[in-house]
């Protein structure tokens, strides 16, 4: 914990130090910055093309110009006036929000239990949960589908959500973070008369907000962008999520890239919001856990 604090203060010191512009550029530095710059360009290009395409007319989309000759917001008007987009957007929002809340709660409950309680079979449970991380989603899709079919979950929100309401990775992450919560804290609360559930909620959870934020971002993004499973488990356009719905723009006559890119550009907005909101907590959380007795 003190480690984090130390690093954080080191970082502020670094930025506080004025950069010495007179210093000659060393070759190693030039190479390093060039590589970083190229890496940055590679990562940003798809987003730039997405934005640029969303402002182009259909005839211009195979022209790789970044600034369209004749920019238009026609695509946005079209997508936003098409009722389906809202439907899918709302579907995605509901599904991603519920799975995020559910995964955060259950992953941290299970992680907390595995971390702070000693009981028979604890290691077995932990290893069993971890081992599911080694099975790729592609392999699970068919069993999930058969299961959903037999339970009658096809074409329902629950059918889309159930594989994600709890995650093995999140459980592992939370377990590791709970290690940093001293047992004293929990015992003090126990003496003060809180029950185990209250201790988890009022003492342990606030101390791992950075982990919760990171997990929330991961889970939200994962579910917001999920494609294969929602595609398989639904065939009712009313229940499509945004990524599944957007692909239907491509099957009608030809691939309408400008519309897909417009939808995709709009789809990034919630992810940006989620990231900005939770990122603050990551930073604040680090400051809080820097407290040492």
């Amino acid at each position: 914990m003190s480690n984090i604090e130390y690093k954080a203060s080191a970082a502020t010191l670094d930025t506080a130090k004025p950069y010495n512009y007179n210093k000659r550029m060393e070759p190693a530095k030039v190479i390093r910055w060039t590589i970083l710059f190229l890496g940055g360009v590679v990562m940003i290009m798809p987003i730039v093309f997405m934005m640029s395409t969303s402002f182009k007319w259909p005839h211009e989309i195979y022209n790789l110009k970044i600034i369209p000759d004749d920019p238009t917001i026609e695509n946005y008007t079209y997508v936003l006036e098409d009722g389906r987009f809202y439907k899918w957007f709302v579907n995605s929002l509901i599904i991603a929000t519920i799975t995020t809340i559910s995964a955060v709660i259950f992953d941290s409950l299970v992680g907390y239990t595995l971390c702070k309680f000693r009981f028979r079979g604890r290691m077995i449970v932990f290893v069993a949960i971890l081992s599911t991380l080694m099975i790729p989603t592609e392999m699970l899709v068919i069993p999930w589908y058969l299961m959903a079919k037999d339970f009658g979950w096809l074409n329902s929100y629950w059918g889309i959500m159930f594989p994600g309401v709890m995650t093995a990775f999140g459980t592992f992450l939370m377990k590791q973070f709970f290690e940093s919560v001293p047992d004293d804290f929990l015992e003090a609360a126990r003496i003060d008369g809180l029950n185990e559930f209250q201790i988890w909620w009022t003492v342990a959870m606030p101390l791992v907000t950075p982990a919760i934020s990171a997990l929330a971002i991961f889970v939200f993004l994962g579910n917001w962008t999920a494609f294969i499973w929602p595609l398989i488990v639904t065939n009712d356009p009313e229940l499509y999520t945004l990524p599944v719905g957007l692909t239907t723009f491509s099957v009608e006559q030809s691939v309408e890239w400008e519309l897909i890119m417009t939808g995709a550009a709009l789809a990034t907005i919630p992810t940006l919001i989620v990231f900005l909101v939770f990122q603050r907590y990551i930073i604040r959380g680090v400051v809080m856990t820097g407290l040492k007795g």
Partner: protein
Amino acid sequence: MATVELKGLVKTFGKTEVLHGIDLAVEDGEFIVFVGPSGCGKSTTLRLLAGLDEVSSGEILIGGNVVNNLEPKERNIAMVFQNYAIYPHMSVRKNIGFGLRTSKMSKADKEKRIDEVAELLGMTDLLDRKPGQLSGGQRQRVAIGRAMVRDPLVFLFDEPLSNLDAQLRTQMRLEIKKLHQDVGTTIVFVTHDQVEAMTLADRIVIMKDGHIQQVGTPAEVYQKPVNMFVAQFIGAPSMNMLPGKKSSAGIVLNAGPTISESLNSDASGIMVGIRPNDLTPALDNEAALFEGRVKIIEPLGPETLVYVELGQHEVLATVPGRTPPKIGDTIRLKAPQEEIHFFNADTGAAIL
């Protein structure tokens, strides 16, 4: 306020037994200090009392009731931890009030109680701060405040001062003592610092390897240690121990001199213990117990500690600070007869 009784308390972790039958009766309102070297089972005893660990065998009574099967919260005790265990995400007010969360008091009464406690600890101005904005001593005070707010039957302290610097420790020690005088609640306090034990305790419990060695007032354990361990553990610097034998003339020390004392013991070997404070320079016209060469001197200000070579052995003596001897000087040392302790060299038990 309540009495506390431990009866034949045993604790095992897996196959290792770490407490081997602890018997102790603590009176109502008494300040009891457990002291002993690291790993002797002090914290374990305290945790059993608090109900944080389960008793392997034996009984714990608080206020005359067996509490073995009660949850920590049902025992009405409060505990202050070494690392304070105050919550960094809550304000001082919330931290102090934490102990009242489950109480049935009205909100206004709770606030009033928190203010009272803060007042008592001189923390009224700090109530809205977060622990991160407090000094070590202030954090410790919050931890004590949280324990006090519920008005428990017994306070348990586990080395609460060991994270503080020396000066603050002395100050907090005084505050805890004052607090005890004000509220009069029974306190069980754990420390490995014998000075803390001596200054705070009504009675001291000295532990070693899961056994109680001696229970007594600070004066008793200092003046009449029951064995060599207690004799050397209590008092700083530690008591000098010199091996010797019984003879018709008295106790013949291997280091030379004979102490005329007829001991009621048939021990083959005798250990003679003299505290450094009692071993002082003899005046020219006085008889000396030892005579030896000064090897090292350690000035402390009011007095100077002197390491004196006695043949194969070495003793630590105290001389007045203004007239220290020089290294290599020969020094004559005396000790009052009544301050010389004798122990059975085999069993370590005191011979009275």
